[in-house]
């Protein structure tokens, strides 16, 4: 079970200190930044940081309800209702389950070849 606390919440100024040295797309063209995908995922300095008040905004980017709620619901609903071709409850998921969970009754039984 996960017992660690949540990751630190960065203030807008802390984020600004991280991105201020990155290059903007409009100044440099699309270039890959060193260490991308290894210790950071920055692709550029977003053009919104050009706005003088952007570093005082607490919530800079939001995810909208339609996309999060509907996709979330669809995925769970398709698994629970066992929708053909949409369910994620397949053999791969059952094999992974054996590695990360203690749910013996849900694991894939090898000898019969059936769930």
């Amino acid at each position, binding site marked *: 079970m*996960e017992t*660690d606390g*949540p990751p630190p919440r960065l203030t807008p100024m802390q984020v600004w200190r991280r991105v201020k040295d990155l290059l903007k797309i*409009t100044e440099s*063209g699309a270039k890959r930044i060193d260490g991308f995908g290894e210790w950071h995922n920055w692709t550029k300095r977003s053009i919104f940081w050009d706005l003088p008040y*952007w570093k005082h905004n607490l919530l*800079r*980017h939001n995810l909208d309800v339609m996309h999060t709620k509907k996709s979330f619901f669809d995925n769970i609903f398709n698994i629970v209702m066992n929708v053909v071709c949409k369910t994620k409850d397949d053999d791969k998921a059952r094999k*992974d389950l054996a590695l990360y969970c203690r749910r013996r009754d849900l694991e894939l039984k090898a000898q019969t070849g059936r769930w």
Partner: protein
Amino acid sequence: MLFYDNDTGKKDASLLQCKFCHKPKYHPINVARRKKKPIPVKSMFYLPLIPRLQRLFASMQIAPHMTWHHEKRREGRLCHPSDGEAWKHFDRKHPTYAADPRNVRLGLCSDGFNPYIQASSLPYSCWPVIVTPYNLPFELCMSKPYMFLTCLIPRPSNPKACIDVFLEPLIDDLKKLWSGLLTYDISKRQNFIMRSNLMWTINDFPAYGMLSSWGTHGKLACPHCMEHHKSFTLNYGRKTCWFDSHRRFLPI
């Protein structure tokens, strides 16, 4: 890059090649053959935002509502973005800006969509960028007449991180709006300096990566956890997984 001039010293409209990749601005065959105007390789639409914001104050029906977020006190209830902490934090940081409730707070939304879904099977992704004012009461806020389509980015493929290039005219207008523009308010029958700020952007997860510049793919996809992530790749599913990571945000 975008071939356009702005008021702050950018003079790119007359260039014929991209400054970074040196690709031509116009279709090369057409430049030699055609006597008429050459055809650009790619073009976007920008529908100016400033006149539409000023027009809100020119209408007797809308102008009185533009101060609604300040006048109607809703103690202890959350029913409008102005009740939220982000809005109050911004007001504390910019007291002179918050002093005039007529200043327009804006939100920005963007998402890709395919206008020809029935006509063609080719993937085509068109990106409208919509700006909406938050000053209005909640029954008018974010309703159809008050959603301003500002940029329309037509292209066959997703703009990815290069969406910034197309947002440049909008950002220039937003900078102008932050410094203030003379506007006539018909409900009070006086001129005033209208200022405006962008509160936040709203979009889905892939667009989040494009606008916030933190890529939302791979093991570092979570823009909140950043490098403190606890993701791993599933052995059989071959997908990145954040199993049990939600527990970190819950009390033990």
